[in-house]
């Protein structure tokens, strides 16, 4: 028996009113690969993420996580099956400290669920795991700072930290380096590489240097369809892809 794919999309469709945003997308993401989704603005990349993570329900088609159909599952149920996502617009617990943000992110996966009979301070594993992630994302110094007071780049790092803290095997990152300076984004690439070691990564990204620096495979989404899915070199050479980037062959991709 073959190992099921980490994520598989089968003829996925999503309409908002009369507008069809995702028009029959197909995608196969094997385990342990880093996948980047690229495409022009409005191609439906973020919608695709919202469908996979359960924020939206598909109009038709199937989404499979490790071979299991996700139809009808709510976001928290999908998360419990080992899929975690970040957001394009920073989505953190702004009044809690950086440390508490991370601790919240590990509680469920460690099995503490809705416990109101245990003291947080006594949960050594939750503390350790949160501290490890804190170290990993380089925010140890900011541990006690309310997350809302972090700089933008720090918040983006925390965003990634929260996403991976729960130990999910499949990670979705939505434009993790958006709005960052060159050095910040280089730093973020290293961070993403570290935290997704041995995991499956699916990420939407506009910055081509990030995409080519990280991805094993690139899926190109145009008008709600996956028009190409291949290694970075082959995607770069693909005529259909070049055409999609507004007839400026290779220019956008060579950046």
């Amino acid at each position, binding site marked *: 028996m073959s190992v099921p794919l980490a994520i598989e999309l089968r003829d996925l469709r999503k309409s908002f009113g009369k507008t069809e945003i995702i028009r029959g997308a197909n995608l196969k993401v094997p385990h342990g690969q880093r996948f980047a989704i690229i495409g022009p603005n409005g191609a439906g990349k973020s919608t695709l993420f919202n469908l996979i993570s359960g924020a939206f329900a598909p109009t038709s088609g199937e989404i499979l996580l490790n071979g299991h159909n996700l139809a009808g599952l709510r976001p928290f149920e999908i998360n419990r099956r080992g899929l975690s996502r970040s957001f394009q617009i920073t989505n953190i617990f702004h009044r809690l400290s950086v440390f508490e943000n991370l601790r*919240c992110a590990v509680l469920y996966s460690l099995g503490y669920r809705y416990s109101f009979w245990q*003291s947080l301070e006594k949960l050594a594993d939750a503390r350790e795991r949160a501290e490890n992630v804190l170290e990993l994302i380089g925010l140890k110094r900011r541990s006690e700072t309310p997350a809302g007071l972090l700089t933008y780049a720090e918040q983006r790092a925390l965003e990634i930290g929260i996403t991976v803290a729960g130990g999910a095997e499949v990670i979705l990152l939505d434009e993790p380096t958006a709005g960052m300076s060159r050095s910040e984004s280089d730093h973020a690439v290293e961070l993403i590489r570290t935290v997704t070691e041995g995991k499956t990564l699916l990420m939407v990204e506009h910055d081509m240097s990030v995409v080519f620096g990280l991805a094993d495979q690139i899926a190109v989404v145009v008008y709600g369809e996956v028009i190409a899915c291949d290694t970075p070199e082959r995607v770069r050479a693909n005529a259909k892809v070049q055409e999609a980037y507004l007839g400026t062959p290779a220019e956008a991709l060579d950046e």
Partner: protein
Amino acid sequence: MAKTITFKPLDIGFWLAWLGYIVFLGVAPLIFSSNLGLTVLSQIGTVIIAALSYNMLLGQTGMLSFGHAVYGGLGGFIAIHAMNLVAGGSLVCPTSLIPLVGGLGGAFFGVIFGWVTTKKSGTTFAMITLGIGELVASAALTFPEFFGGEAGITTNRVIGHAVLGISYGPQRQVYYLISAWLVICTIAMYAFTRTPLGRIANAVRDNPERCAFVGYNTQKVRFLVVVLAAFFAGISGGLGAINFEIVSSENVGALRSGSLLLFTFLGGVGSFVGPILGAVVYVFSLELLSKVTQAWPLYIGLLFLLIVMYAPGGLWSVVQMNMRIIKFQLFRQMLRPYAVILCAALPLFLGITTLIELAYARQLDVGGDAVVRIWGLPMDVTSLMPWLAAFVVAVIGAALFRRAARGFSLAWGRVHEIIAERTAGRGVSA
């Protein structure tokens, strides 16, 4: 067992605060030993539990409820029926545990109503709680068997035999019963803030969407918090039933729910202590201020407005900010601005309160006597002089206050800038 030992300096202030709280509750009836003193203290105890339980929703989970009195009230009804059953001999339960019966009653209704209200969050949740509140309030008048109609249900708290000489006849004994439950509930609700569910409740408050993406069903979090808050509200209701020996439809009404919201916010929803302060202000205004002036709701309303506009963190946040200034040894810089602003506020306060009291006296025509005493001075409400004088004092006060406020806010800003610099410096070096 391998265990990481983390060194943490013992927070002396934290333990001193708890010790002070418990000691104060213990000796308070010796200091305020009059009947009025005991009545006020007892009531403060029950309201503190209710306000803390309300803040589990508003401050900790970000749920604005307009119907929280429902749980305390229904818990109170259950408790008072239980007391009457005990008196009738068909139930055995010591009076000391009656509050627990109230708590279980509150939690029971928390399960039922919480299941409905927490299906939605935000504004929709607030609207549904308003509806539930109205529903229960109208049911209170429709089912007199349970709610006792207009008169309510009465009881006699001296039931069964006195245990160790405690019959709960004297108010002092009731006070100590309330205090004991108050200490237990305060510790329990504080402990709740440091449990996984308590922390996730904060996360739901800050960002429910993200909470779902770290594995939590936010609806279930809200539901559990409502049930727990209803449990503590029910204990408060049970204690109220013992204290007043009556529970009526007032106890579940919108006015009670509104007061809980208002005074919890007034005390401060951003901290654990805030609601305690709010509860004290509530009982003081209800039992003491109301005896001094009929315009007391107006004054409370004005205070509420001022807090919402200038200190949205509530009264406790004002205390906290000043304690911070003292901690950084900068309070000396604030002494002068404080003195100036208080001097300027005095004529404004006297002028405005005199005008309000004159208006009330004229409107209510107290006893047909045109002369009333305001701030110790006899004033004739029918003559122009006191009105004019109060108006002039108020206007002068307002002008002075404006100037003083400018100086005060400059000094306040300066002090906080210094604090910000010092803490930022510490953050980098640490």
